[in-house]
């Protein structure tokens, strides 16, 4: 019995069950609307894995939402609902683009500088929410939603400033090449072009994609946050505040300081994600018609991961894979690609039911107990 309850208790097992239920529900919806679910899924997986280039594209799409996912998950562990992650991400893109356009240092300074600008901007932007929560008791959901829109319009404002706006487009100028992703710069160098010309595999996965170092940074951040939460005093205090604010305060933990710190770190991670999107993928800031949802998708990633920073890596890849592959089912058999949103929504919904696990285990144990009595 112990072994069974241990397996059931594990987040991972539950995530697998949730994913299975997600696929099942989506299959039922597809079946009810006249599509063959097996056919849809086989096309979906073909769209995800049939070429190395597809896999690389999924990794590229996953990197920013892994980071926004970690940002959200981190705050969640401290009991804070960082719905402002979208705005912190946008502010990161703005700062990275502005610094990337205004300055032109050698690339070993410029690239880190651009990332730092995005990280700092996101962190400070997040810290305002933390400050307002800690000092004035204003709910972080309200400031988060407001700050998302403020960042959104601020970005569009910057794009339309004469100093940054590229005439005849809806974007800024490209950031200076010295601030672009090292992989991109290598690809464009003589040596890189030479390799790409001669090696078909490299041409597929790097030449034809926006391959960038985002995923490496995302993994480093995931491990770092995991380490901080598990093995440091700060992490212990943060988790304590997340579990019981009042008890922590009574134990001498400064909850206000913790709240601000948490938002600073969460915002910084989201801002870094935005900066990496500028250096690695878009290279410029776009005027937005609607929010791009990198932040909101991070919410889903974090919830699918059950709030674990390392889990965010896998959840991010899954999310990116499903949405990337989802595009092909629309193209190939005309099944609405929105089925993917239903699938992911169901997974998150099931993850919300995670509190059921202890109940189920108790039920099982009770039954086991009764048998012993006999």
């Amino acid at each position, binding site marked *: 019995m112990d072994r069974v309850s241990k397996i059931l208790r594990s987040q991972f097992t539950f995530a697998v069950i949730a994913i299975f239920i997600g696929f099942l529900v989506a299959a039922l919806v597809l079946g009810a609307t006249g599509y063959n679910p097996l056919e849809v899924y086989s096309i979906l997986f073909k769209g995800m894995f049939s070429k190395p280039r597809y896999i690389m594209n999924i990794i590229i799409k996953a990197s920013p939402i892994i980071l926004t996912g970690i940002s959200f998950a981190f705050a969640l562990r401290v009991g804070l609902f960082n719905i402002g992650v979208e705005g912190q991400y946008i502010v990161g893109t703005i700062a990275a683009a502005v610094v990337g356009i205004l300055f032109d240092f050698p690339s070993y300074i410029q690239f880190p500088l651009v990332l730092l600008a995005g990280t700092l901007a996101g962190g400070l932007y997040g810290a305002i929410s933390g400050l307002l929560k800690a000092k004035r008791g204003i709910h972080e959901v309200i400031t988060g*939603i407001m700050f998302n829109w403020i960042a959104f319009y601020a970005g569009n404002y910057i794009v339309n400033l004469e100093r940054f706006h590229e005439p005849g487009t809806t974007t800024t100028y490209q950031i200076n090449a010295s601030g672009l992703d090292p992989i991109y710069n290598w690809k464009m160098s003589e040596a890189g072009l030479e390799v790409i010309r001669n090696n078909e595999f490299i041409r597929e996965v790097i030449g034809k994609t926006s391959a960038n170092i985002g995923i490496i940074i995302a993994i480093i951040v995931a491990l770092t946050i995991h380490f901080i939460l598990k093995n440091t005093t700060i992490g212990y205090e943060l988790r304590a505040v997340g579990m019981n604010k009042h008890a922590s305060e009574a134990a001498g933990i400064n909850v206000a300081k913790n709240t601000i710190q948490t938002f600073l770190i969460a915002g910084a991670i989201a801002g870094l994600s935005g900066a990496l999107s500028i250096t690695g993928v878009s290279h410029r800031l776009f005027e937005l018609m609607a929010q791009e949802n990198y932040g909101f998708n991070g919410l889903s990633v974090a919830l699918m991961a059950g709030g674990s920073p390392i889990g965010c890596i896998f959840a991010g890849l899954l999310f990116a894979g499903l949405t990337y592959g989802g595009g092909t089912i629309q193209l190939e058999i005309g099944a609405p690609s929105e089925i993917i949103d239903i699938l*992911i929504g169901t997974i998150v919904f099931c993850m919300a039911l995670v509190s059921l696990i202890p109940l189920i285990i108790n039920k099982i144990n009770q039954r086991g107990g009764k048998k012993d009595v006999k």
Partner: protein
Amino acid sequence: MLSKLLLLISNTVMYSTPLAFGALGGLISEKSGVTNIGLEGMMTIGAATGVSAAYLSGSPWVGFLCAGIAGALMALLHAVASISFRADQSVSGIAINLLGAGASLFLVRIVFGSLNTPPVPKKLPRIFSDSSVLGAFSRLNFEVTAVIAFILMLVIWFIFAKTKWGLRISSVGEHPRVADSLGLNVYKIRYICVITSGFLAGLGGASMTLSILSNFVPTAISGHGFIALTAVIFGKWKPVGVYLSCLFFGLAQALVIQLGGGSLLSSQIVAMLPYVLTVIVLVVFVGRSVGPKASGVPYEK
């Protein structure tokens, strides 16, 4: 000048209506102790269902009603998760937003074959079928949905201020254990409130697509549910306050439309102002906002 002022009033009322439905719904749910972050998803499914049903039946009122039912069904999911299964209400709400958006686009794609629908045969009416009866004030011929929202606010105010039903809901949201010990059925009351909340949010979504627009587009509901959520807190969980908050956001949007692109301020800055203002008002005037005590906390018998 007068005509500009009348236009501003008319636009304010128009833009605040979907928010008012959503926010009043959110208010009822929160009052009973269930946070409803899923308003956005419930409004979206209402917007999509409203247009689909109005298109297929030919009647905007059938569409309006179906939108409410669709919102209520979404809310039922949220209720099952957050009341019976005691799930994390924020997580469930986020899932509802994903499911609502996905199901809406899926539905619209199945019914119309594309994500931007053709206009419905008939929109929801205005108060007077002929605006000219109002003479110079023809701008004030509001949408019927605006009137419904206003009446709804009065009804909800009355329920909470004057009836035992309101008292019961509040007690379940403040002290569920005490309410339970006094013989109230906490689960039942919360279920009713959450489902009502979804019904209203669905109506809000439909008031956007059947009254303001005349078709469904994927951006029809973009952030309205979240603004409605904000309005609940901004209005300090009081029906009149919540309604006024929605008017405030409506006014802001109307101002953006009327001032937008002027030489004085960039339209982006104008668009940003309501959100900046909200934060400033909160910091300076409102301060600590305290909701129903048990809001967001699952109740375990």
